[in-house]
């Protein structure tokens, strides 16, 4: 009836009973949950929430929901990071040093990696894609609006499932890529790896269907005149990232399914006996894992290619070079996976091939850096927060690239492998490259979504905290790696390592301050919203000035239909040319616009998928059957009796919305177009 809950070895509630940290965290989350629930009920917001958010198929709202999910997960993942840094700063001596026992510490580093990659970076990426991409290509929505909603709710289910493991049962203690045989039943008999497997399966499915959606959107929904070589670079990077997703996530899904076969059905794909071979998993998971890095970093390059020209008031240098560089990376990213195990005894030819292929990636990446530099050259640079993030990114990311090339030299990697040098390197590229760029994107496009900019002073403070904090946290790790410290150490015996771990902890605290400033920025906006009773200010469409792409040609925030009249594009940087040539026309005659209708099917599929995942983790087979049939039936029911006709916004309504924008725009002191 209750599956593994009745099995004492699964230790369903032992963490809550024996670990005060877990208990208090769970209590805090519950109290916060109840608080939010009460506020929503008291204010009577459930209806609005249901109609405008939960069942919405509007890409802009789904985008915002993705970003909110990502920010919540950022806080969770960062809390893990802080706990690790605090623990390692104290963990000189033996196993009882520090405040975390090994089984807890091991869960934390596993959760940190999984959450940051799959439930922080990926949702943040899709949040930005969702909000910006259709606007940049002049589309009224994505190609498959329902699929978009479905993708979000399945991601949400995965994120909730992984967080349930905090209180009920435990999480995997296997590292973020769960190498077997440690992740097999022989190495991890409890529920940890099952939580890992099922939450990643959910996230993988969601990511794949979202990628299908965006590839279709970019290929088919571009406004007339926007040929591929007039596509903004962010859209190009999004296209390549989504193609990559379509090629690599199936590999992950299959690899996870095989491991599930091992754990649930007694198969022997990766076991030590019965003909299994753990090395096969390592290859599969890195064929997924390495291109995944480019999935994350390519859109970051795209963001820079939008932000740097805007704040340099200048066109992007070498657009064609940039596009070719992106395409070269698409191909090369599949040829480098074995550099994650130069130390597995691959032999001379394999190691040389993967070493050289890895280095070659530095060429197109370097080209991009030069592109941004020459974009700044002879420009008019304004140091607004998005530009600061971008400059911080370029400055930091080249350092990460430097250590990346050092690691790509196979014989040198034999000394770096799995040391903290490696950990410092990938944080150097992920924080310095991906996070800085995504934050630049968030700050840059925030006024697009909400009509007002984030507070500038807090933004600058946040940037400097992240920037300085980053160097303090990760440079000690480079040195520690060279001193012979490996990653994932619950304790260490070398007294000379401790000062460096303490410096790294101080760095993490400085980054925490940076996150706090970002939260304050957002709270200020929430306060603004409360003061104005939720009515967003509709002001100028081009708050940063000298923006270049179509998303800035419409009001901020955009109306539900995005473009009243679809623009026609003749050049790259369409909006910039409209402004310089004065061809921005203010339409006077509107026609009715077709809109897709909301649906709750995605939400129900998400909830049922969550129940399915939970039941599978705990072996509650009747609930598995029930929720699985549920998921399938909801999809079938939605296909046959769902509302697929959509509805029309009449020309009058469009006129009214556009007039209201013009009025607000003029009132705020805007120039007549």
């Amino acid at each position: 009836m209750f599956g593994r809950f009745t099995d004492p070895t699964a230790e369903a509630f032992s963490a809550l009973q024996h670990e005060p940290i877990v208990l208090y965290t769970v209590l805090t989350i519950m109290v916060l949950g109840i608080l939010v629930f009460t506020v929503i009920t008291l204010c009577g917001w459930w209806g609005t929430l249901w109609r405008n958010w939960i069942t919405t198929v509007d890409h802009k709202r789904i985008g915002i929901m993705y970003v909110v999910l990502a920010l919540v997960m950022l806080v969770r993942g960062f809390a893990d990071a802080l706990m690790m840094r605090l623990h390692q700063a104290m963990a000189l001596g033996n196993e009882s040093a520090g405040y975390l026992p090994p089984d807890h510490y091991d869960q934390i580093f596993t959760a940190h990696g999984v959450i940051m990659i799959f439930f922080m970076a990926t949702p943040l990426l899709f949040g930005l894609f969702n909000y910006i991409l259709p606007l940049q290509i002049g589309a009224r929505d994505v190609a498959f609006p329902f699929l978009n909603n479905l993708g979000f709710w399945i991601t949400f289910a995965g994120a909730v499932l992984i967080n349930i493991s905090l209180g009920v049962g435990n999480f995997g203690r296997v590292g973020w890529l769960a190498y077997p045989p440690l992740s097999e039943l022989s190495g991890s008999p409890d529920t940890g790896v099952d939580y890992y497997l099922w939450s990643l399966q959910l996230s993988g499915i969601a990511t794949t269907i979202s990628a299908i959606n965006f590839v279709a959107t970019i290929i088919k929904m571009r406004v007339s005149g926007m040929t591929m070589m007039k596509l903004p670079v962010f859209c190009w990077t999004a296209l390549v990232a989504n193609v990559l997703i379509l090629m690599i996530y199936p590999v992950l899904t299959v690899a996870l399914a095989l491991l599930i076969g091992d754990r649930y059905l007694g198969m022997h794909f990766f076991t030590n006996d019965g003909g299994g071979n753990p090395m096969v998993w390592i290859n599969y998971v890195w064929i997924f894992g390495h291109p995944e890095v480019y999935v994350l970093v390519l859109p970051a390059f795209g963001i820079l290619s939008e932000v740097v020209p805007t704040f340099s008031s200048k066109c992007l240098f070498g657009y064609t070079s940039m596009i070719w560089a992106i395409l070269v990376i698409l191909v090369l990213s599949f040829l480098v996976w074995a550099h994650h195990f130069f130390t597995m005894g691959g032999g001379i030819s394999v190691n040389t091939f993967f070493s050289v292929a890895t280095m070659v990636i530095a060429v197109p990446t370097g080209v991009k850096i030069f592109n941004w530099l020459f974009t700044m050259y002879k420009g008019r640079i304004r140091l607004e927060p998005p530009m600061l993030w971008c400059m911080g990114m370029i400055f930091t990311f080249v350092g990460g690239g430097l250590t990346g090339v050092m690691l790509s030299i196979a014989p040198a990697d034999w000394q770096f492998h799995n040391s903290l040098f490696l950990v410092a390197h990938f944080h150097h590229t992920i924080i310095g490259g991906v996070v800085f760029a995504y934050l630049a994107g968030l700050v840059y496009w925030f006024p697009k979504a909400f009509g007002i900019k984030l507070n500038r002073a807090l933004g600058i403070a946040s940037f400097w905290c992240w920037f300085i904090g980053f160097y303090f946290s990760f440079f000690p790790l480079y040195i520690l790696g060279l001193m012979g410290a490996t990653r994932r150490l619950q304790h260490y015996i070398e007294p000379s390592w401790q000062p460096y771990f303490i410096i790294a902890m101080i760095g993490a605290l400085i980054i925490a301050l940076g996150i706090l400033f970002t939260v304050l920025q957002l709270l200020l906006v929430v306060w603004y919203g409360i003061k104005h009773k939720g009515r967003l200010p509709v002001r100028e469409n081009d708050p940063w000035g000298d923006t270049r792409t179509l998303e800035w040609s419409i009001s901020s925030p955009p109306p539900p239909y995005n473009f009243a009249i679809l623009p026609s594009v003749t050049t790259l940087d369409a909006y910039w040319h409209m402004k310089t040539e004065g061809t921005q026309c203010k339409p006077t005659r509107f026609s009715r616009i077709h809109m897709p209708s909301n649906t709750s099917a995605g939400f129900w599929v998400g909830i049922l998928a969550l129940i399915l995942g939970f039941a599978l983790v705990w072996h509650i087979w009747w609930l598995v059957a029930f929720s699985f049939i549920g998921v399938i039936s909801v999809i079938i029911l939605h296909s046959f009796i769902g509302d697929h006709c959509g509805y029309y916004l009449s020309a009058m309504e469009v006129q009214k919305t556009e007039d209201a924008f013009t009025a607000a725009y003029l009132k705020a002191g805007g120039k007549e177009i």
Partner: protein
Amino acid sequence: MENLKKVLGILSVLTLMSLLSGCDVAVLSPTGLVAKAQRDLIIISLILMLCIVIPIMFAVIFFAIKYHASKKDTEYLPDWGISHKVEFFMWSIPICVVSILAMLSAYFTYKYEPSKPLDYAVATDNNPLRINAVALEWKWLFIYPEYGIATINEIYAPTGRQVALQLTAQDTINAFWVPKLGSVLYAMPQMNAKLHLLSEENGRFPGMSANYSGDGFAGMHFTWHSVSNGDFDNWVSRVRRSGNQLNYVTYLELTKKSKSNPVTYFSGVDRDLYYRVVNRCVAEGSKCNEELMRLAAARSLWGELCSVFDVRESIAPVNIRE
């Protein structure tokens, strides 16, 4: 002002030096032949890359100051987006640097391939000391097949003599790493990885597992003692006096999980123990992987069609006749 700059410069260099020299940065102060080559490679690649990276870092800051929007008198080219000259350099400079590094990498990968005996040692007709290492949960077992002895968490090896390690693991994947000597190599169940190391100086070098393998992973450290030939022989006889026997039964006892294990000596080791660990047939009644693979291959379509596995039988009578 000039003096202040000098003082600041000296101070910063001193801080850096004290930060790095106050403690022993193992990878940069190696004692092993392989690790020394790797240190040189690391430093060369770092310098080469810095030649590109430092100008970029400098340019970001310099451009932000020089072309700041407040400076209206600097040149402003809003539509300057194509320059084939610049793009030529943009692609060719990284290509040049990467080509140099690629050649270096290929050369060193060939020269220091862990499974190959070290050139230097071959040239000096240096017959290697063989050590078979097994990563257990959570300790290292080192078997000296030529001496018939074994230890837990301790290696003694003569300085200047090449050591040929074979690595495997019992349960989970680990990696063998002595930072002062060089080259991490995975110790994996069912696999037999070969690693050649050589220490050029006497000393005690910390070693560890470099791949996370579960709860007791952090305690999987061992010490590599590089000693003179005489001291090595003394140590061998010390181990021989311990009286512990490592046979199938005591080995299975060792495979049980245990953390932070003390150094232990075994004066006798079953001859085929390491072979059986790699082939996973230490437990009584289990078939070795090599045998299983032979059976599976014989049963496969290829085996049946070509019947290469019957060759021995058909040749055997001929031999007898001779």
